């Protein structure tokens, strides 16, 4: 087998394994989300939702800006450590084109609204749900943060917190890419 054909075979085997995994997961009574990494370098799933201020927010309307899309909840300690930093970044990098959108995965909307108010979150905050989570590859642990570039493509995914320095560096890079 030549190097080229071996590489091709490996790619095909990789595709087969990926498809098999999707199939196996799909047998789990309708579990149809894609693997987390499947979103990387793909167009970010669109959504239109009302934020806590009552404004209709369309992800598409932020095309041309870098979007930090964060999934959080009031009971998630690592999330609550990140949110003040996101607020600081919104202030620091907002004029350069950053938009923070925080999606609460709480069951209790009142609790999420109260905490957002208490923390003085001055970026877009809204409620999420299982459907939105699935469209983003399954938000099955918090926090999860996506960085979406100016073209609306998912550039990176971070989970479990603790990646703020790396995240900020990547934001700067995405903002610099005009």
């Amino acid at each position: 087998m030549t190097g080229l054909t071996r590489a091709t075979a490996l790619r095909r085997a990789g595709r087969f394994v990926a498809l098999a995994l999707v199939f196996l997961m799909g047998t789990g009574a309708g579990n149809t989300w894609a693997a987390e990494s499947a979103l990387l370098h793909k167009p970010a799933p669109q959504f239109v939702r009302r934020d806590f201020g009552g404004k209709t927010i369309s992800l598409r309307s932020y095309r041309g800006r870098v979007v930090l899309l964060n999934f959080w909840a009031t009971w998630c300690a690592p999330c609550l450590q990140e949110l003040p930093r996101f607020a600081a970044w919104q202030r620091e990098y907002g004029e350069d084109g950053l938009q923070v959108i925080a999606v609460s995965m709480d069951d209790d909307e009142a609790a999420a609204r109260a905490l957002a108010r208490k923390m003085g979150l001055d970026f877009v905050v809204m409620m999420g749900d299982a459907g939105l989570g699935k469209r983003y590859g399954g938000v099955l642990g918090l926090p999860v943060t996506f960085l979406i570039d100016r073209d609306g493509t998912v550039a990176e995914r971070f989970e479990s917190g603790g990646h703020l320095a790396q995240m900020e560096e990547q934001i700067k890079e995405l903002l610099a890419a005009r």
Partner: protein
Amino acid sequence: MGSDALYKLLQGGGAKPLVFQVGSHVMFSQAHIRGAQYAGQGSQATGLQLLESKIAGLPKGSFIVIYCGCCPWNRCPNVGPAFHRLVELGFTNVKALYIQSNFGDDWVNKGYSVETGG
């Protein structure tokens, strides 16, 4: 109890535990262990009330596994209170599923069977 051990137990032919998810319902709806029941967030009083209603009438020796997976294990606000409540109520065979990172990484991405909705 680790996820590998629970998965083997659920796949095997022997007696199976009752599995309760004690995290958020939004997470449960996205995916939960096949056959698991939603039992409310352990960190909230209303969640513990729902848990109590789920186990009402069960023999105290029932094999029960609770899990959450909302956050890394050492940051999870739900499993501890739910576990302690079950012990307080006299249940003697309760185990918490050890989910190191989150339910996605430690169960779903291992290819273990799940259900959605509910």
